[in-house]
């Protein structure tokens, strides 16, 4: 049994003497007898590390690790340079708390500041926070930022990832915020602002179906009605696609999992949030700012804290009091390692290979694109026998696309080689093409 305790029996005795008790149990005398446990917890006895590892490894071995994945839907397998794991396992970063004491936390503060800077450059927005739990909660927090005493209704594109829609709905239930789900036509959000009294609209770029939305147009129309625009983006696509900033969005959010964070069965991931300067004080979560120390040296510190719950308490707009710092570090290291050209290349791989696969799949009889609009690296196909095709792929160690309303949503990244794509298409052809 491990418990990571350093105190030896003889030290324990010395300490009990110093405190003035003979048994450790006396220290718990303030707990009423009635609520004190009378029996040990019904949890097995502890195990030595070797046995723990064996037990946990056996559990891990029951999960299937695919050699090839063509599924996205909010979680993406991209290549993670070895340097990311190496740097992010440094103990100082791993075992530090939130940097409340800036004098001994310049490293983590600067790392977050650099992360914020990179998010601003990717999204072309003015201010980024230090991150939130994930992309779905980032979207939900962004809705809260847009509420005013007069307007609070949120418009949600039905082409958002369902995980995002469900999360935003829960937050709306909490804060009694009305919302409306907007339909989509041919995979693109269909918006009519003519008599809208909404405070904001959330759309995704590219959207759940992989389709590239007309964000610029939506921003123009929404702003005409005083409606703020929140764009959920795939960070890798931002190396290629028109940025939320260029389109005129007010807030850019998203999940930065594609930036060096493994699939991890859905978490921990990394929610990024960036906005225009005017909204800075509505931005929830931690923000690192640059300042100087008393000697005039550059220094970094958590700033604009009066927005936050530990000061504002019930008047705070969000209760968040952490960020995903270690995941933000991963994203920062990933982006720095890849550089502009590396990220652009990753994005080009994604788009090029996805279009190659889509074209190959559409050569199969009965397979066609569900929407004719342009896409990035995910696309929806009509497929005659989706379940059978996916099952055949699975047998070959390939995780195929995601079934959505009887159609198949495919995702291709730089991790999928042309040979792999050809193999997968061949399997689908075997099943569907006859």
């Amino acid at each position, binding site marked *: 049994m491990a418990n990571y305790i350093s105190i030896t029996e003889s030290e324990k005795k010395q300490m009990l003497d110093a405190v003035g008790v003979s048994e450790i149990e006396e220290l718990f005398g303030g707990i009423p007898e009635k609520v004190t446990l009378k029996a040990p917890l019904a949890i097995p006895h502890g195990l030595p590390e070797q046995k723990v590892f064996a037990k946990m490894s056996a559990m891990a071995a029951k999960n299937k690790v695919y050699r090839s994945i063509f599924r996205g839907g*909010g979680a993406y397998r991209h290549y993670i340079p070895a340097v990311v794991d190496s740097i992010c396992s440094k103990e100082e970063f*791993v075992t530090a708390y*939130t940097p409340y004491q800036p004098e001994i936390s*310049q490293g983590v503060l600067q790392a977050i500041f650099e992360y914020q800077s990179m998010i601003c450059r990717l999204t072309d927005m003015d201010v980024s926070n230090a991150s939130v739990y994930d992309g779905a909660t980032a979207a939900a927090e962004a809705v809260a930022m847009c509420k005013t005493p007069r307007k609070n209704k949120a418009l949600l594109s039905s082409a958002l990832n369902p995980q995002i829609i469900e999360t935003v709905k829960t937050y709306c239930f909490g804060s009694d915020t009305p919302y409306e789900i907007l339909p989509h036509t041919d995979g693109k959000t269909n918006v009519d602002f003519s008599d809208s009294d909404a405070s904001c609209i959330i759309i995704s770029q590219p959207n759940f179906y992989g389709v590239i939305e007309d964000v610029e147009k939506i921003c123009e129309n929404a702003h005409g009605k005083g409606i703020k625009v929140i764009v959920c983006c795939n960070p890798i696509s931002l190396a290629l696609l028109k940025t939320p900033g260029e389109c005129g969005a007010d807030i850019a959010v998203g999940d930065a999992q594609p930036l060096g964070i493994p699939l991890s069965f859905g978490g921990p991931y990394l929610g990024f949030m960036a906005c225009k300067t005017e909204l*800075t004080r509505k931005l929830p979560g931690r923000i690192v700012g640059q*300042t*100087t120390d008393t*000697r005039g040296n550059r220094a970094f510190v958590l700033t604009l804290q009066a927005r936050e719950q530990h000061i*504002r308490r019930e008047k705070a707009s969000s209760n968040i009091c952490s960020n995903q710092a270690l995941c933000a570090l991963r994203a920062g290291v990933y982006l720095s390692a890849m550089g502009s050209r590396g990220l652009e290349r990753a994005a080009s791989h994604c788009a090029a290979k996805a279009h190659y696969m889509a074209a190959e799949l559409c050569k199969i009889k009965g397979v066609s694109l569900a929407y004719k609009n342009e896409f990035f690296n995910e696309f929806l196909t009509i497929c005659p026998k989706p379940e059978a095709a996916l099952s055949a792929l699975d047998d070959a160690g390939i995780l195929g696309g995601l079934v959505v309303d009887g159609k198949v949503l495919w995702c291709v990244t730089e991790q999928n080689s042309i040979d792999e794509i050809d193999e997968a298409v061949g399997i689908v052809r075997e099943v569907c093409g006859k």
Partner: protein
Amino acid sequence: MTTIFERDNGAENEYLGECEVSYKLDNKYCRDKKLKLPGVSEGELCRHYTQLADNTYGVNNGFYPLGSCTMKYNPKINEKVAALEGFSDIHPLQPKSTTSGAAEAINLLSKYLCEILGMDSVTLQPAAGAHGEFLGLLLMKAYHADRNDAKRNKIIVPDSAHGTNPASAVMTGFEIVNIPSAKDGMTDIDKLKEAVGEDTAGLMLTNPNTLGLFDKNILKITDIVHKAGGLTYCDGANQNAIMGVARPGDMGFDIVHVNLHKTFSTPHGGGGPGSGPVGCKSFLSKYLPEGECSIGRVKAFYGNFLVAVKALCYITSLGCDGLLSASQIAVLNANYVMSKLSGLFETVGDGYCMHEFVITLEKLKSETGINALSFAKALLDEGIHPPTMYFPLIVPEALMIEPTETESKKRLDDAIEIFKDLYNRAKAGEDMHNAPKRTYVSRVNEVAAARNPIVKA
């Protein structure tokens, strides 16, 4: 330190080869503004982050008695296990039949947490303690709404509460009723009785509380709230004091969250990722995200799964007896330090503390002008991470000290000597207003940072 942008010399690393196929997106979809990420070689990148790590202080650097945060040792085996491909490289949307190991991990951890907390169901979805509070309060909201009891819109919160409690209550549409604590640091029973009524949705209480004291009236407290028709929420931030000793479920709490990154040894990572599972009694289970009358999801997928794996690994290592020892030694360590410091510093509450205690420097401040902030900054020069400062709000010039069970007696003795030495130096007239002096940067100008925010390079 040089920033990564200042190191940019246009170097390029080669991680991905040329793409065998090409596709040109129409220009109308493409960004015009050139992307400007740092261009540094991998070697320079490593040096950059090594320098940042050198200027970061973690639990493995030294004593970290940050009250309410449970900065215990983060076992290496947890990291090794979480990094196994079978956990880290599985897709959240792959077929359920291919993730039975993940389901087993989730179910087993949920079962253990139910047992430790005395609850009937647990969800692992919340990503942090505050996120758990949010979910827990939504359970209350759904419960009252289901009973057509919508007039219950007030949450009672004691003035010693974490700031997240009132903030979470407001995010879930409730109003706050603050009640003052009694002189002994416990909940003021009379004030609670006055506060409850037909509009009470529930009570949020941290127990052991933020003064490091176990509320001796806990059964009476939860009973008062229940009799008034409200529900009871336990902020389980201080669970490290009572594992295997007492359970929130047996104290009359209906809902509780715990922080896996505090009690269950998963690393804090400089601010996250954490995990804040929520447990509840069976009559509320159906409202959990996974339940049949679900409040909905609060996060994508299954929560911070890898953090849950680490916590499971920890519980498996310690077992029932190890968890109990952890709490016992956590409480012993805190009492040991308190007993050694109480001669010089005024502590809050009488009798023994739980896993943490609060000292007030009010007297020292009035005698010497050295306040809790300066004292904390002076500790930095001695290689100690300061305790939590100025919390709870009800104690003036507070320092909240939580040593945790994984500290050695030698570390505690050294820290005690440092506290005493600083106290004596302050009394002797040493000026600590300019502390720290030996850290990488000296005291930081927070006013300038907030007045003229520079938040990106």
